[in-house]
Structure formats: structure tokens, C-alpha cells
């Protein structure tokens, strides 16, 4: 896939100092090592430990949702003037995290970056689960989630239609399209690996299950050719899609006239932030998992370093946006814009703002240093800081902009309730629960793509 044989070189590889796969593997061993995680190897106790914890946290989420639906969204802390808060903060946070998956899969594929191969499957799964977590929040914020289908245009008995001029409707379309296309992309990528698992599985049950999922894939050259075309086309489609999703999320805010929301830089700023948070999350997860499953040979130091560099680059874009926003707030000469910045700098939530600046703009600058980039622990810590920072960013944008709007008499404060927290933490539990199930039952590294980057995969030129 990534190693085009009519292009025997790999441009990006010219700078390679470390390999994307450690030497000494062949088709068979790569296949066996990855499929064994699913089929043969005993599940490590760490998995059960993690599963139990995330199951319990997921149960907390379920209790929260039940209570929420029975009582109403009044159990949350948001109220006038802060009408949007944790529900939307967490939505944006999760959607942002979901961005890295498609970015790694699609954009790096288009740019023929072979190092993506060992992490793309995992990152795509992450995308799907993050989108699932994200989707919960607006769904529940509607108050009546069982009527969510009202958001789609269909010949209903009410004789009305959704309001397509509303950015919230754009969001519905963007997020559902994103979820669908990501799932398709993920599933298409899995088909050949399902076939591998089908052929390796010992029990009849798994043979049938993986056999059905593989759709009867048999590796025909004709099939591969169309498959490759499809995969590239999907990558080409997913790239603008992924950018559009956070762009549209930013529209939710930016089309309004709330100071702190209405800024034309919001679309690229949100996209950069999303990729930033997404890569932080990928690093946060891959660093321990490669250790736990002994996958250092496939997810090498080079992967970690490259992702750290991307994190630094997007972090700089986010910092740039903070700067431009601040400068323009003054430059605009608009009293409300200026007050918005003043309120961030010196208002009641100033500590969160300065913490955000530290987390998102200051701390990641250590990644400029080569030595830091070579320390997985340091990168891991930076990833945590960035994840927190990106959450804080949404907090600053949403409640802090809302709590002081144009009319001082309607100013108020916002504080999350217990249920806000259980909802947020609950989705983290659900995310990990789904991720652990994925690791247990599906190949977390794309086996067939790993085969393509083996040196043996190259077709030797005919001796002329």
C-alpha cells in the first residue's frame, strides 16, 4: 500500500534514521505475532484489571444517564447564562481526540508516510470510540435522546423539517458522516485481517465469525487492485472530511456573536487543536500498550518521535491562535472583545486560563529538544498535560465566554455538579472499555499492511 513498487524509493524515508519495523521479521512471523494477541495468547492480567476498572466506570456512566433521563438535564450545573458547559466541552474534547485517527490513516497514507502502518488501525479504533463518546453529549443534552431521529429530515407527522441554516444541524450531519465514514474506513482496512484470523482460528465459532466479517476475502490480485483503489479514495475523502468536522464544530460557536466565540480563525484553530489533542491521546495510549504487549518492534521509537513532532507543530498553531485572538481583541477596538480577553486574563476563571496557557502553549515547547523527544516517559507526560490543556481550552471557550456576556445584569458563574463529573469520567471509562474489547478481539495492528513494509515484500527487478 504505502510501498508503491513502481516507485521503488520512498521519498520520506530518505531521512529515516530509525526503522519503522525492527529487522528479523518475515511474513509468517509478523502475521503470527499480531494475530496471536487475538487468537492464541492468554489475555494478560493487566487487560482484566483495566477491563474491570473501565467496566465499573462505564456503569457509573449508565447510572448517570439513567438519572439524567429520569430527572432531566437540570441535574447538570449549566443554567442561565451558562447554557452550554460540560456537555459541549466534553463533546468537543472527544471529537477532537477522534481526529488523530483519521489523520494518521488518511493524510499520512496520502503522503506515503509508511510509519503510519503500525499505528493506523489502533488510531482508527480510537477515532470511532472517541466519536461514540462525543456523540453521547449532544444527544443527551437534547433532553429527550430517544427522539434524536427528529434531527434528520424525514417525512414526519409534524409536517416540519430540521433547520439546516443552524450550525447545530451541520454538526449532526458532520458527526454522523464522520462516524460512518470512519467506521467504513476501519472495516475496509480490517477485511484482509479478518481473513487472516479466519484462517488462523482454531475453533469453529471464531472461524465462522471472522469468516463472516471477512466477507470471503481470499486475496485475489484483482480484488487487491480494487481494494487499494478504494482505500486510497477513502483516504482522499476522509482527509477533507476530518478537517470539516472540527471546522463545523467550531461553527457551532463562531457563527454566533458571543465575544470569545465569534472569531474567523476558529475553523483552523479548532482543527489544529483537535489534531493536537488527538495525537496526545494516541501517544498516551500507545506508549503503555506497546510495552504491555511487547510491540516495540512494530511501534518503534520513530513512531513516537514523529507523533511528538506533529504534536509540537499543532501545538504551535494553537498557541498562534491564542496570540492572534488576543491581539485582534485589542486591535478590533470593540469593547466586548476587549473585555472578553480581560476576563480571561483577570476574571474569576483566570487560573484555569493561565493553566491552559501553560499546558497547551508552554509545556509542549520542551519537545523542541531532541533529548526530550527521545524519552518516552517525557513524551507521555507532555501528552497528559496536553490532554488536560485541550480540555481546559474548551472550558475557557465555552463557559468563560458565556458567563459574562453583553448585559452585566445577567452575568453569572458556573460550577459543575457531581453528575457533570460522573458523566465526563464515565465516558472516559466507556472509551477504555471499548478500546480494551477492541484490543482483545481484533488485530490492533494492520497485519497485511505490516507485510507490505517488510523488505521481502519488494518485487525484485527482472534480470534484464
Amino acid at each position, binding site marked *: 500500500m504505502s510501498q508503491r513498487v513502481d516507485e521503488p524509493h520512498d521519498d520520506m524515508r530518505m531521512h529515516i534514521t530509525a526503522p519503522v519495523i525492527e529487522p528479523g521479521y518475515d511474513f509468517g512471523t509478523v502475521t503470527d505475532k499480531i494475530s496471536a494477541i487475538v487468537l492464541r495468547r492468554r489475555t494478560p492480567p493487566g487487560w482484566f484489571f483495566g477491563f474491570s476498572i473501565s467496566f465499573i466506570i462505564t456503569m457509573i456512566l449508565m447510572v448517570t444517564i439513567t438519572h439524567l433521563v429520569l430527572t432531566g438535564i437540570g441535574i447538570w450545573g449549566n443554567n442561565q447564562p451558562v447554557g452550554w458547559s460540560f456537555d459541549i466541552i466534553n463533546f468537543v474534547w472527544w471529537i477532537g481526540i477522534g481526529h488523530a485517527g483519521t489523520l494518521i490513516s488518511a493524510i499520512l497514507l496520502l503522503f506515503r508516510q509508511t510509519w503510519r502502518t503500525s499505528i493506523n488501525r489502533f488510531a482508527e479504533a480510537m477515532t470511532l470510540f472517541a466519536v461514540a463518546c462525543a456523540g453521547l453529549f449532544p444527544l443527551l443534552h437534547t433532553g429527550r435522546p430517544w427522539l434524536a431521529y427528529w434531527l434528520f429530515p424525514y417525512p414526519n407527522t409534524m409536517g416540519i423539517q430540521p433547520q439546516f441554516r443552524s450550525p447545530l444541524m451541520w454538526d449532526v450531519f458532520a458527526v454522523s458522516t464522520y462516524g460512518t465514514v470512519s467506521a467504513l474506513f476501519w472495516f475496509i482496512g480490517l477485511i484482509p485481517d479478518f481473513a487472516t484470523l479466519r484462517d488462523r482460528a482454531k475453533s469453529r465459532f471464531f472461524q465462522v465469525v471472522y469468516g463472516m466479517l471477512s466477507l470471503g476475502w481470499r486475496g485475489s490480485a484483482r480484488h487487491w487492485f480494487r481494494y487499494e483503489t478504494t482505500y486510497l479514495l477513502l483516504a482522499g475523502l476522509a482527509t477533507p472530511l476530518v*478537517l470539516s468536522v472540527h471546522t463545523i464544530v467550531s461553527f457551532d460557536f463562531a*457563527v454566533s456573536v458571543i465575544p470569545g466565540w*465569534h472569531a474567523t480563525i476558529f475553523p483552523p484553530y479548532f482543527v489544529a487543536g483537535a489534531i493536537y489533542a488527538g495525537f496526545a491521546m494516541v501517544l498516551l495510549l500507545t506508549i503503555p500498550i506497546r510495552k504491555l504487549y511487547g510491540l516495540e518492534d512494530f511501534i518503534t521509537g520513530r513512531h513516537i518521535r514523529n507523533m511528538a513532532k506533529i504534536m509540537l507543530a499543532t501545538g504551535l498553531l494553537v498557541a498562534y491562535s491564542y496570540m492572534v485572538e488576543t491581539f485582534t481583541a485589542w486591535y478590533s477596538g470593540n469593547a466586548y472583545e476587549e473585555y472578553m480577553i480581560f476576563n480571561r486574563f483577570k476574571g474569576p476563571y483566570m487560573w484555569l486560563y493561565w493553566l491552559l496557557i501553560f499546558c497547551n502553549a508552554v509545556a509542549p515547547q520542551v519537545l523542541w529538544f531532541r533529548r526530550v523527544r527521545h524519552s518516552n516517559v517525557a513524551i507521555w507526560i507532555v501528552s497528559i498535560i496536553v490532554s488536560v490543556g485541550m480540555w481546559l481550552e474548551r472550558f475557557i471557550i465555552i463557559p468563560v465566554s458565556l458567563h459574562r456576556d453583553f448585559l452585566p445584569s445577567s452575568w453569572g458563574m458556573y460550577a459543575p455538579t457531581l453528575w457533570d463529573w460522573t458523566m465526563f469520567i464515565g465516558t472516559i471509562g466507556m472509551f477504555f472499555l471499548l478500546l480494551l474489547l477492541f484490543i482483545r478481539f481484533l488485530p490492533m495492528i494492520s497485519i497485511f499492511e505490516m507485510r507490505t513494509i517488510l523488505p521481502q515484500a519488494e518485487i525484485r527487478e527482472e534480470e534484464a
Partner: protein
Amino acid sequence: MDASHTTPVETSRFQMRALIVGIICILLCVVGAFLITDGLRQFFHAYLMGYVFWTGVSVGSLAILMLHHLSGGGWGLVIRRILEAATRVIPLMFVLFLPVFFGIRTLYEWARPLETIPEGHREVIAHKTPYLNIPFFMGRFVFYFVVWGLLMFFLNKWSLEQDRTAEPGLRKTMQGLSGPGLVLFGLTVTFAATDWVMSLEPEWFSTIFGLLIMAGWGLSAFAFVIIVASRLANRPPLAGVIAPLHFHDLGKLLLAFVMIWAYFGFSQFLLIWYGNLPEEIPWYLERMRSGWQYVGLILVLFHFAVPFFLLLSRNLKRHARTLAIIAGLLMVMRLVDLFWMIAPVAEVHGGGALGLVLNYWMYLLAPVGIGGLWLSYFAHQLRQRALLPINDKGMENLLEQAAAARHHHEPELQGIDRPEHI
């Protein structure tokens, strides 16, 4: 210097011609400025437009050069010397700012005495005086050029050194400068865009504007480099090294820049249209009536839609000459975009069809004039060095491939008339 790696002789002829055309156009404009009514006003706006455009090609090239140093890739190696030559025109652009300085009071409302500013604008402009005043404006202008000049100087110096010494560590050095260099690029261009273009209408503001200009500059630089590369591709030393694959990559990046520009442009438009705030929307209202809407439509069609669909095709991207035509279209569209941003400010009206010609002819000649000088200097710079960074580590790989491609069934470079004797 290995003679076989320098520019073909035709460039010197081109250098002369460009210089002559440039000088003639500039002179015509200067004459026009003093002869026709409101001529000075038209001259300065037209000149600013040309100036911003050609500075963009230089500074955009600088950014692409740094991007290449950071990420590597064959596409960057084959155009590196073109990019470097384009950056070396930056000192010329520093000098060419002089007319803008002379026209500062004509161009910028904020530069005029506060008392002469109409009541409605005065308060907002007074607020901005700490930033928008002539000394600080000039200071910033010098600062931008110092930053760009230093980046240009070191990257070119090390590149030349690499040619001479083949020191492998230089690669890392250039890479090391490029990271912070891009950060500086982002900051300087943002403020340059604010200073030179956004402050033409001092009441208006948009946070994405810096990025919009950055994307535009990057796009014009890319388009320019593609045109030059396609012109040089059929002659040594590039012939046989630059392959359809590289044009494919350049085409992809051109497409990416087209999409990014459209994305930024649409984002700014949609948000301001939707917000409909009195301090923002006039900028678009002004550009969506009395004929300007057609200019906007041309931008939508030919700055985005047409190149977008053309560049989707794999074959068009690999066909050097077609790609160069698309790039040429985009260069023109960059000018139209700047025209759409700058010219409505000049507010010269009337006179019917003849008036249209009289009021806008300089917008055609000024960019050509500055372009003539720019291209002439560029051609001069291009001839100073080998066309390929022959001692870069990536070059071996590149030459090997080229050999392999010739040997294997890699199709010949399409759309290039390869002279028989090669």
C-alpha cells in the same frame, strides 16, 4: 561549480527582457499617476497589490523551502534551487517598498491626521494609533525583512556550503533552523498582512486574515515554482532527474494549497456573513456589489472550483505542461484575489466602459512592472548556482531513481519535448 548543473543559457536572455518590460510598465504607471485624475490614488493601490503579490512569491518560497528542509522528499530537492533563488529576491523587495512608503497617506486612512478622518471612523482609529502609526509601521516593515533576510541568508549560505563541502551535518543545521524559522514566518506574515492589507480598512478586522494571506503566498510561490520547474524540466541539468512523480507531488501540494486557501476564505466569509455584525460585514458588502461580486465569482470559479477539479486528475498532475498552465491560472487568480481585497478601497468610480479602463489599467501594469524587476533579479539569482543541490544526501537516491526509471518502464516525462540529442 560544475557547469553541467547550472541554468540553461536562455535565462540570461529572459533576465534582460523581463527587466525591460518591468521598467517600461513601471514608467508607464508613474506617468499615468501624474497625468490622469485620481492617478496617484490608483497608482499606489495598484502598486501595493503588485508589491504584496511578488513579496508573497519570495516569502512563500522561503516557507516552502523550510517546509522541505523539515519534511524532506524528492519533490523538494528538485525545486530547492528555484526556491532559494526566489528567496534571494527578498532584498529587492525591501527596496521596492519605497513607493508604498511615499503613498502611505494616500493608501492608509490611519496615516492621515486624526482631524481629517470622518467622525464615524475617528474613534476606532484613535484606539489603534499605538499600533497603526507611521514610525511603528515602518519599524515593523524593517523587522519583517530582517527576519526574512536572515532566514534567507543562512539557508542559502548553508546550501551553498553543502554544494562545496558535502558536509552531511549541514542538513541537520538547515532542518534545525527551519522549525523556528517557520514559527517566525507565521508571526511576521500575520502582522505584515495586518499592516499592509487589513489596515487599508482600519475599522475592519478578522482573526483568520494572517492565515489567509499565508495560504495565498504559499500558493503563489508553489504555482511559480511549478511553472519554472516545468520550463527547466526538458533541459539539463533537471532533465532526467525531475520525473512525473515529482510533478505529481507538486500538483498534490498545489491542490492542497488551493483547498486550504478556499477553506480559509470560505471560513472567513461564512462567519462574517452569518454573524452579520456592523463592524465586520461592510467589508464583504462593499465587495459584493457594484460589479465586485463578479470578481468574487471569478475567484470562486477559477481560484477554487476549476483548479480543484483539474488537479483531482492524476494524469493532469503528472503532465508537467498542463500542471504549469493550471499553476499559471492560479498565479493570475492570486492577483485577482489581491485586486478584490485592495482595489475596492481606492473607491475610484465612474466613466462607463472607458472609465473602467482608465480607473483600473494600472492594476494590470503595476504587477507586471514589479514582476519584471522581480523576475529579472530572480533569473539572475538562479544562474548563480547549480540547479540541483548535488551534494545533498537525498540526491543520490534521486539520481538512482531517475536512472532506474529510465531503465524500467517508468513512462517518459509527459508533455515535455525532449530534445533529440539528450
